[in-house]
């Protein structure tokens, strides 16, 4: 067994999940300065959309029974739908509010979704098996890697490149990039605000659905709280990547994944429970060194 490739695959697949979640948050932050704390609940919502509503401990597959070719697009659409709906019902009413009020209302929305899930599905985590075959290990360059890790890495690369193409080549993409750069100016120059914002929410929700599918396959558990932790890491990744910078969010997501895997392996045994404390200390250090973010664009610097 070879330790270094093993470590590499662990880091890349964890980082891939973080990167995708961070993209979902960065997309929305870019166009409307909203830190969307409900993103983690979009993930949980997509997970629970897979199973039949009941509070029993054993999950009965509902959407999850469908073949992958049908399941994947349907679940992505589900994620996009809830994100767009939440924009329409909540955030559209708050367009002119200050960022703090928007952030708190996104938290309140997350709270509502979470408790609605709790009311319908009960608070016990449920065992759920989606594509269990994907966890069988395969041997790659001397490391035994679950197939899923490879799929995660490939999916992330695929999603990021498709998104890059979308942003670079299509009209909506162009408008989104313009909006992320300077929303007011973009609107003055004829960017359709509602189209851009709805598009950003739809993409962000689809990203949440992708994260949900990966997490369910990996852990085999459906838990109402499963979105929270990953959302926070993604949020941090968005900031240290440079706010409003989509490539920055992806890079920082991978970086956080890599650092936490390396810390897990490198720390002495007695310090290992404190891994996250070391991780977050590094986050503060990175912010102190580069307050604008590691990969910030030149325009992100405040002008005086």
């Amino acid at each position, binding site marked *: 067994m070879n330790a270094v490739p093993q470590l590499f695959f662990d880091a890349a697949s964890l980082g891939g999940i973080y990167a995708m979640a961070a993209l979902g948050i960065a997309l929305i932050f870019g166009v409307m300065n909203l*830190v969307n*704390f409900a993103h983690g609940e979009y993930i949980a919502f997509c997970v629970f959309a897979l199973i039949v509503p009941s509070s029993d401990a054993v999950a009965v597959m509902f959407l999850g029974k469908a073949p992958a070719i049908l399941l994947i697009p349907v679940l992505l659409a589900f994620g996009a739908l809830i994100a767009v709906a939440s924009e329409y019902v*909540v955030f559209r*009413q*708050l367009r*002119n*509010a*200050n960022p*703090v*009020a928007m*952030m*708190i*209302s996104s*938290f*309140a*929305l997350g*709270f*509502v979704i979470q*408790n*609605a899930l*709790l*009311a319908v599905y009960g608070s016990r985590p449920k065992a759920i098996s989606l594509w269990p075959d994907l966890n069988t290990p395969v041997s790659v360059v001397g490391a035994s890697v679950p197939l899923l890790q490879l799929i995660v890495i490939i999916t992330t690369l695929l999603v990021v490149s498709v998104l890059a193409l979308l942003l670079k080549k299509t009209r909506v993409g162009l408008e989104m990039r313009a909006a992320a750069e300077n929303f007011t100016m973009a609107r003055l120059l004829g960017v359709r605000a509602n189209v851009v914002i709805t598009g950003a929410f739809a993409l962000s929700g689809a990203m949440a659905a992708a994260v949900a599918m990966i997490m369910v396959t990996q852990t085999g558990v459906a838990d109402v709280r499963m979105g*929270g932790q990953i959302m*926070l890491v993604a*949020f*941090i990744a968005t*900031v*240290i990547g440079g*706010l409003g910078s989509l490539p920055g969010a992806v890079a920082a997501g991978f970086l956080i994944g890599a650092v936490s895997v390396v810390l897990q392996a490198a720390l002495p045994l007695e310090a290992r*429970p*404190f*891994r*996250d*404390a070391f991780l*977050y*200390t590094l*986050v*503060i250090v990175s*912010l*102190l060194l580069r*307050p*604008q*973010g590691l990969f910030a664009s030149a325009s992100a610097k405040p002008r*005086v």
Partner: protein
Amino acid sequence: MMDTHRQNRLRALTTPVILIAILLAFVLIITATGDKSLARMAAQTLIRVTFVVGLWIFVGNSGVVSFGHAGFMAIGAYCSAWLTLRPQMKGMFLPDLPPWLASAEWPHLPATVVSGLLAALVALIVGAAILRLSGIAASIATFAFLAIVNTVYSNWEGVTGATSSVVGLDRYADEWVTLIWACVAVAAAAIYANSASGLALRATREDEVAAAASGVNMYRHRLLSLVLSGFFTGVSGVLLGHSLGVLNPNSFYLGITFITLAMLVVGGIGSLSGAVIGVLVLSVLIEGLVRFERGIDIGGASFALPSGAQEILIGIIMILVLIIRPTGLTGGRELRLPAFRWRVRHSKQEPQSTN
């Protein structure tokens, strides 16, 4: 004789008096009902008042949203547990405490003050680094601080009891003790907000660049307010521990961070009155809905909300308040006594006026 400016400064001092009167009335009404569980709810509410007012001293004046204050709360709460728990209990549950701490058995008040001071000291050290940042980077750094505190306190087995709770704290923090601390916090917040440092800090909140150009050292004033704020949030942690009797690192994590921020924003982040009113309104609302969930009798028929409806309703109400009044219930204004216009008029007409 009194010019408008001085009159305004004097009127600003009526804000804490009004707020303290409101808190006192709140406790008096609740003790008048003689209901034990309502009295507990009042103590919890006043602890949150202390916390949110402490949070406001920093967030309201500087405009930087902090996710880290629950960390100061945890530091205060555990410090008081180390100082006041009986030595036998500490020997059993917290074996790795240093000997002088393991044998300490302090009275409540000094333990509370020292715990608050420890939180303030941590605020000074952490703030010295974090407050070099501004805007959302500073908020993320405060969040990272919270995560560090939570990770350390939930894994430092022999000193904090890790995730198995610390039990056996003396439950002396009833509605009167918490009322006194809430009033102290309100008074301190009002005095700070109207001091030179508080005014300078609010100038930076409105416009960083203009304030810096006028010679305001933003870093120093932010640090000062964070230290003061750390003290009161630390004290609120002490009170929470001595009200529940049990400490667990996860009661000082994301749940309390968000609900208190929500109270602050719903009340109105721009004013001290907003902080106090936000806590009172949301706490009363939550308590009312919880009771409604258990079922109430109206004219012989029993009505009950389905379980889980309370949280969902609270979330929806919060969103509605923010949509209808994005600047919070108070809209950033303070409660004040009305101006004594007659005094100004009289002083113009009769120069020999007594005031």
